[in-house]
C-alpha cells in the first residue's frame, strides 16, 4: 500500500492489468446493487461498500499518486454531500406538509426503460451510498497516508 523506499519497485504488470479490467466489473456490479436495492438484495450501503472496494483495489494495484490523479475526488466532502442529500430528501417531504422522511413512489412511462417506478427513496439511498464510499475511503486512506 505504501511504497517502500528500501525496496526496488517491482513491476506489477499482472496486477495492474487485472485491476484495469476487474475494477470496471466491480464498479458496474456496485451500480447494479445500488439500483436493485428496492426490489432485490442490495441498496446504498452495500453498493457503497462495493464501490469503495473497487477504489481500494485501484489503490492496491497502482501507487497513490497515480490514483489521486485518476480520481480527483475529495472523499471527505463526499461524506458531507451524501449527508446533505439524505437529509434534503427528508426535508423535502416536510415542504409538502408531510412528516420528516416521508417517502413517495409513482410509476411512470419512461422513453427507454418502459414503465418504471420512481421513488424518493432513491435519492435518500444515493446519500447513503456517497457517505459510505466517502467514509470507507477516508478512513483507510488517511491511515495509509500517515507517515509517522
Amino acid at each position, binding site marked *: 500500500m505504501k511504497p517502500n523506499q528500501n525496496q526496488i519497485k517491482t513491476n506489477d504488470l499482472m496486477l495492474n492489468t487485472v485491476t484495469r479490467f476487474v475494477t470496471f466489473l466491480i464498479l458496474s456490479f456496485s451500480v447494479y446493487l445500488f439500483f436493485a436495492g*428496492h426490489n432485490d*438484495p442490495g*441498496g446504498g450501503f*452495500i453498493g457503497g461498500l462495493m464501490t469503495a472496494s473497487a477504489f481500494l483495489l485501484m489503490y492496491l494495484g497502482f501507487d497513490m499518486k497515480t490514483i489521486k490523479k485518476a480520481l480527483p475526488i475529495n472523499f471527505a466532502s463526499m461524506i458531507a454531500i451524501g449527508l446533505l442529500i439524505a437529509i434534503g430528501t427528508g426535508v423535502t417531504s416536510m415542504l409538502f406538509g408531510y412528516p420528516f422522511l416521508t417517502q413517495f413512489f409513482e410509476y411512470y412511462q419512461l422513453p427507454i426503460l418502459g414503465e418504471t417506478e420512481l421513488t424518493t427513496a432513491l435519492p435518500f439511498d444515493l446519500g447513503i451510498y456517497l*457517505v459510505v464510499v*466517502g*467514509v470507507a475511503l477516508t478512513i483507510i486512506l488517511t491511515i495509509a497516508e500517515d507517515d509517522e
Partner: protein
Amino acid sequence: MTLLHWATISPFLLAILIPFLYKYLRSIHTGWFVLILPVVLFVYFINFLPITSNGDVVKEVVPWVPSLGINFTVYVDGLSLLFLLLITGIGALVVLYSIYYLSKKTEKLNNFYVYLLMFMGAMLGVVLSDNLIVLYVFWEVTSLASSLLISYWFHREKSTYGAQKSMLITVMGGLSMLGGFCLVYVMAGTFSIRELIANVDLLTGSTLFIPAMLLILLGAFTKSAQFPFHIWLPDAMEAPTPVSAYLHSATMVKAGIYLVARLTPVFGGVPEWFWILSGFGIITLFWGSLSAVRQKDLKAILAFSTISQLGLIMCLLGLGSASMYFGMGEDYFTLAILAAVFHLINHATFKGSLFMTAGIIDHETGTRDIRKLGGLMTIMPVTFTVSLIGIASMAGLPPFNGFLSKEMFFTGVLRASELSIFSMETWGLLFPILAWIASIFTFVYCMIMFFKTFTGKFQPEKLEVDHVHEAPIGMLISPIVLGSLVVVFGFFPNILAYTLIQPAMAAILPSLLPDGEVFHVDIYHWHGFNAELFMTFGVIIFGTVIYLLMKKWTKLSIYMRERDPLNWFYDNGVSGTISGSQAITRIQMTGLLRDYFAYMTVFIILLCGYTMIKYDAFAIETTNLTGIDPFMWVLTLVFIAATVSIPFIHHRMTIVIVVGVLGFLLALLFVVFRAPDLALTQLLVETVTVVLFMLAFYHLPELRKEKFTPRFNIVNLLIALGVGGLVTSIAFSSFALGSEANLPTIAEFFIENSKELAGGYNMVNVILVDFRGLDTLLEVLVLGIAALGVIALVKLRMTGREDV
C-alpha cells in the same frame, strides 16, 4: 414583611454595609456603627414584655415556599423573648467591649463585624422562627458564622483547627436535626411548631417518634456542647474573647437549650426524653466541672465551666419534663423548669462578665496562663471586683444569683431521686450524688481561678508586657453592667419573675396551664435548714479542703493532662476517615483499564443474576424449536472451534485472521438464515475491517513488535464464563418467556405493506430507507463522524511534544 421580620434580618442588612463603612470611615472604629443595631433591637424587644407577660403571643407570617409548607413565620412568646433579650442585650455589651478590645489599626474589623452581625441575625432567626425549616436554615448560619469567628485569626493553626472541629461537629448535629425535622413532617404534615404542639397526638402514636426525637436531640446536644460532643468548645477558645463571651457562653451554645425547651411540649413526658436529657445533662455537668479543674488557661477553665453549666440546664429541662407526665399536681418539676430558665439568665450574665474579665487580663498582661498570673488584685481593682462577683455567683455562693439557681437545682435532683417513675427508684440516687460532686469541683475551679489570678505574688518577670495596669474604662463598662446584673438578680430575684421567667415557663409547659392561670414563681434566699442548704455547706467545706490540698493532687499525672481524652476519638476519627478513604481509593482506582472492566462486568453479572434469581426468571423452552440441519451443525462447530482457539493463539496476525474467519462464518450463517443483504454487508464490512487491522499493525511501535503470550488468569476466566453464562441464560429465558407471551410481531405489518406503501419488494431495504429511514440517516451520520474523527486523530496531530 412586618417590623418583626425586618428586625430579624436587620443584622444581615447592616452586615452588607459594614465593608463600606469600614473602608470609607476609617477614622471611626467600625464597632460604633454596629453598636447602634443591638441597642435599638433590645429596646424594640423590650416593648414585647407587657404582651408576653400577659400570656399573649405575637405571630407574623411571610410566605417563603408555601407549596412545601415553608413559611418565614416569626413567633414571639415568653421563651423567644427571653432569648431575644439575651442575644440583643449581651450582643450590645459585647460589641461595646470589642470596640476597645480589637484595635482599629491592626485588626480586620470589617470581617469581624460582618461575621458577628451574621451570627446575631441567625441567632435571632433561630429563636424567632416558628417554622422548623427556617429554624434549621438560621441554625446552620450560626454554625457557619461561629466557625468564621473562631478562625478570625486564620493565620494561627490552632484557630483553623478549632474552627474546623466546631464546624464538623455542629454541622453533623445540624444535619441530623434536619433529618429529625423531616421525620416530624412525615408524622404530622407540618413544619410549624405551633401546629405540632396543637396536634401532638399525631406524633406520640407514631413509630417514628423516637427516631425523630433522637435525631433532633443530637442536633441540640452538639450545638450545646453536651457530653460527648463538648470537645469542640474548648478548642473554640482560640476565637477573640468578645466572640467567646458572646457565642460560646451566652448565646449560641444555648441554641440547643432553646431547641430542647421549645420542643418539650412536643416530645416531653416520655421516659426517653426524660432520661436522655437529664442523664446526658448530669454527665456533662460532672465531666465539665471535673475537666475544668485541670485547666491552666483562664478561657479553657471558662469553656469547661460553660460545658458543665449547660449540662446543668439540660439536666433541669429533663427533670422538668417529668411534670408533663404528672400534670399540674406535682409542681416540683415545674420548679426544675423554673430553675433551668433562671439559671439560663444567670449563666449568661456571670459567664459573659467572666469571659470579658479574662479577656481584659489577657489584654493587659499578655497571658491567660494561671501559672504565670498572680497578685493582680491591687493592680486591676475593677477587674478584680467584677471577677469576684462572677466567680462567686458561678460557685453558687450567697447572695449572688448563682446561689439561688443552684439551690433550686439541688431541690430538683433531690426530688428526682424520690421519683417512682421511669425506673428512677434504682438510679435516681445517682443524680444528687453526681450533682453534689460536680458542685464541689465547680467550687474548686472557681477558687483556683480566683486565687491564682488575683492573690499571691505578682510575677512581672513572667509576663511579656512591661507595664501592667487597669483596663480602659470603655472595656470595663460591659463586665461592670453584667456584674451588677448578677448582684441585682441576686438580691432581687423576683424582679424578673413575672416579666420574663413565668412567660418562658408557660411557653415550655403550655399544656399544664389552665386558661388564665400562671405559674407561681417566687425565688427567695432563705429556705430554712433543709437538705439543699446542707449540701451547699458540704460543697463549701469539701471544696475548700480540696483546694487547700491542691499541692498534693497537682502532682498527679491526671492533672497534667489538660486535653479532654475524648479528643482522641475525634482526632483519630478525622484522620482515620481521611486515610481510610485514601486507602479505598487506592484499592479501587488502580488506573488499569482491565480492573475497571472487571468491575463493570462483575457488577453486571451480579445485578442481572440477582434480578433473575429474585424474580425466578430462568426458563427454557424446547417445544417451539425448529430442527437443525447437518450443515448448520458443521458451521456452528467451526464457529465454536475458531472462537475457543483465539485465547490460545500467540501471534497477533493469526488472531486477526481467525477473527476474519469468524466474520466470514457469520456471513455464511446469514446466508443460511436467508438474509442476503446482511450477508453481503457482513462480507464487505469484514473485508474492510481486516484491511484496517492490517493497517493498524503497521503503526505498532518498533519496540513492541514482539510475540506476546496470553497469561492465564483464573479470575478472568471466571468472569468470562459468568458473562457468557448469564447472556446465554438471558437469551434462553427471553425466548421461552417471549413465546409464552405470544404477542404478534411487527414483521407481519412489514410483510403485508412493503409493496403497497413503499413500492419495494426488498423488505430489508424498504425498512432501512422508508419505514425506519431516520435510523439509517443517523447511522451514516455516525459513520461520517467516525471518518472525521480519524482525520482529526491522524492528520491534526500536534507537532512537537506539548500536551493539550
